[in-house]
């Protein structure tokens, strides 16, 4: 996985900030993504409580213990990816590959929970067009799910990248940037889980 720099990447380039180009560029991308999710979340909050003609309400649908489990899995995947980055930096190539694989697997588990939840809600009568709650809920959490899916594809590509000899120090930068993305997706979920699920249950 290489987003090459103008000077190639076989030798580390001295930059003005001391931060690698790819990492700085990626931080900028994540800051932009923050606004993206903020706008979606604002949409959810602006329309909060607009249930239309008696569709199922969040109170009737949300299963906090179930979603807590999937949240826990996603949070643990963040730990796994940290250990993956650390192992790669230490030159522990096989272990890094293992941790990245574990991260991808936990991401898939989270997506499985989400697929189950969407399916369940759909059968309870909540669709994209049934009410504003349906519209905003599916679009907000759906975009997060799409980000997780992209992250899983990314991690699997890393595994392909390291299929011979694992993910060693030469690939630590690649693992680190994928890890940044993964943490970001996790943090977004922490916000969504709190605002969409927990605050709803508390009200």
């Amino acid at each position, binding site marked *: *996985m*290489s*987003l*090459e*720099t*103008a*000077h*190639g*990447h*076989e*030798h580390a*380039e*001295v*930059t*003005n*900030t001391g*931060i690698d*180009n790819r990492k*700085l*560029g990626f931080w*900028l*991308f994540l*800051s*932009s*993504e923050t*606004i*993206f999710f*903020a*706008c*979606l979340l604002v*949409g959810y909050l*602006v*329309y909060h409580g*607009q249930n*239309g003609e008696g569709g199922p309400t969040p109170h009737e649908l949300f299963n906090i213990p179930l979603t807590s489990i999937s949240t826990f899995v996603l949070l643990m995947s963040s730990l796994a990816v940290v250990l993956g980055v650390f192992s790669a930096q230490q030159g522990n190539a096989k272990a890094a590959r293992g941790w990245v694989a574990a991260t991808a697997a936990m991401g898939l588990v989270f997506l499985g929970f989400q697929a189950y939840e969407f399916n369940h809600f759909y059968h309870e009568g909540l669709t*994209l*067009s049934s*009410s*504003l709650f*349906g*519209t*905003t809920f599916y*679009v907000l959490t759906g975009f997060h799910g799409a980000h997780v899916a992209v992250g899983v594809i990314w991690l699997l*590509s890393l595994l*392909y*990248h390291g299929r*011979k000899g694992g993910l060693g120090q030469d690939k630590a930068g690649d693992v680190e940037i994928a890890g940044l993305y993964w943490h970001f997706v996790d943090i977004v979920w922490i916000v969504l889980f709190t605002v969409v699920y927990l605050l709803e249950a508390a009200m």
Partner: protein
Amino acid sequence: MATAAKTLGFIPRPTAETGFVSWLTTVDHKRIGIMYGVTAFLFFLFGGLEAFMIRLQLMKPNLDLVTADTFNALFTMHATTMIFLAIMPMLAAFMNFLLPLQIGARDVAFPRLNAFSYWSYLFGGLFINTSWLLQVMDPTRRAVPDSGWFGYANLTTVNFSGGMGPDFWTIGLLLLGIGTLVSGFNFITTILNMRAPGMSLMKMPIFSWTTLVTSVLVIFSFPAITVALLMLMFDRQFEANFFNVAAGGNVVFWQHLFWTFGHPEVYILILPAMGIVSEILPTYSRKPLFGYSVMVFSTALIGFMGFTVWSHHMFAVGMGPVVNTIFGLTTMAIAIPTGVKIFNWLSTMWGGRVKFTSAMLFALGFIMCFTIGGLSGFMHALPPSNAQQTDTYFIVAHIHYVLIGGSIFAIFGGIYHWFPKIFGRLMDEKLGKWNFWLMFAGFNLFAFPFHFLGLMGMPRRIYTYDAGFGWELWNMVSTIGVWVLTLGILLFIWNFVQTMRKPVGTAADPWDARTTEWTTSSPPPAYNFKEVPVISVRDDFWYKKYPEKEHAAGHGRGKAQTIAHAAGAVHEAAGHGGGHGIHMPGQSYMPALLALGITLLGYGLLFSNMVTTVIGVVGIFAGMFGWAFEGDGGTVIEVAGGDD
């Protein structure tokens, strides 16, 4: 990496240096800049043609040159084209070409992403404009966007726009947004990370500063329109309810999201133009830019405040007196840093030995017209007067004064100024002056009457009007103005073509200019700098040429030398020293392939066509994995005499 390159890098990296493939696969920021410029100019002519038809239709009362429906499509596409396909990318052309040269870098931080930005822009622009083709083939589809350039909700919802227009508009702008965002990340990274040794941020040429602030605006404002467009797309394609009033949706929410993007967007259109003018004025006044630091802070302040004023586009919505007052005040506050800039430009010329070249004339035209546009903008900032002016030609006057008199004049000035650097030839100055005076007179004749028409109550976006309101004279004058303006632009094209027929051979520094890009040959070599320059002061090149002026300018030579010395040490440590050869990034098919895949996916969504969608997705994956695994493929250029 080598093994991976064999298996997934399915096409070897191309190496063609001339011909079609070399342009298709180039990652050179200078070539990409030229492609941006040429493409944007063609779109500019197309948007101009749309404007020409609008003005012909409005020349006299009750004309029926075009139908009301076509008129709606014309003004929508005129604005969309000029903003997203002409002015923004023309400014991006300057950023691409100049930024690395100004900061002493060999390319941008991510050359392939830079190429990707261009291809997504080109394909996105073609995407929106294919709606015209479809409209001609099958008028019942109502394919051309016709809901206005800010696409207000419920005009764009299925109930009120059953045709494909808003779909073309929504998906097209989403496609364009991707490339723009990527450019934003790329330019910020380049500026923060790749400046030449010694060039602290406060020694950076002012145009690079405006590029930095503009890029920050891009990466924080485009997500808002992305979300708005996605919501609209979900409403239209998948029957979601975001703007469905019957389900409780709020159409004003669209306006908030759109203008949260839309107001920073107008600064995206003007800040780089201000940067261009701030480079032209010192060069032809033979004086440093007056109050450089204040200019930098004003730019940053305008950028920041640009996020705090969006609701002034919505005073007539009925947000209440408190909200209106707050947004009126924040809007008026923006006039302060803007006014500071205008006075700094005037002070830059004050006492200078001013040379009235074509570029300088355009810069002066900019100052005058932009000030008029700024003053009418200030009038809109007052909610009571805004209530009188909103949706009248007064608003149309304002936007044309800041975008033509502002951005376009700066762009033309920039073309005359940097043409020798870009193409190695000098444009004809005599034709250039005719070009300026025709455009200046034509533009004012065309847009100034809009003030009168607006105050006389002529609403914007009407396709015709009855005689007897007193609007006849000024509409006629305005249309004549467009003819004169068009003549000026045709003269520019003539000048361009004639100049390109001349052989290459301009001096590196024909204007006796000040900043680092002029140290390279005209046009610069692919690698920009044999030796990465070491910068010790602001306007470094000027003081290298005229060391005796440096002391007078108050730059302590001792201090400057210390900095240069320290910078030189860093420079050596970084391996920039002579004799190493210059590493050049490899060309690639992948940026164009990826952009094409995304565009095909857009068409697939638009027509709900599974085959196109699948081909698009395959193209995206092929582009991304080819990109990731094609390997480095760069070349090393050995430059003779790299030790000087």
